[in-house]
């Protein structure tokens, strides 16, 4: 038996359990050609 993939609604519910998925931060300091 193969596993049934999760549905979109399940994925959405999971997203709401972690603020890391609501906001992701990146620093561009040190990137070449940015400024």
């Amino acid at each position, binding site marked *: 038996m193969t596993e049934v993939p999760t549905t979109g609604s399940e994925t959405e519910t999971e*997203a*709401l*359990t*972690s*603020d890391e*998925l*609501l*906001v*992701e*931060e*990146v*620093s*561009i*300091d040190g990137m070449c050609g*940015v*400024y």
Partner: protein
Amino acid sequence: MSTRTDATFDLDRAWQVDPRVSMRPEPFGALLYHFGTRRLSFLKNQTVLAVVRSLADHPTARAACLASGVAEAEVPVYARALAALADSKMITERMSHDSRT
């Protein structure tokens, strides 16, 4: 300079997007760039974008969440997201005399 953590974010105060932040809507949510800190933040869905955009229009962050369609049970999740944005200076506390009606 004090360090802000999740525990110190006050949902019942007035907040606003920092004037030095540029916000660009994207299909996944939005991209925020802070010209002062040179940091980027990705808002990963349209609801958190709506919350952030409406912060300046509401007397509290909680009101902005509820007005943007965040369910009461989900408010703590959005509060942590806002705390992360406050920690990176993307949003700043609004003084009471600066509140909009």
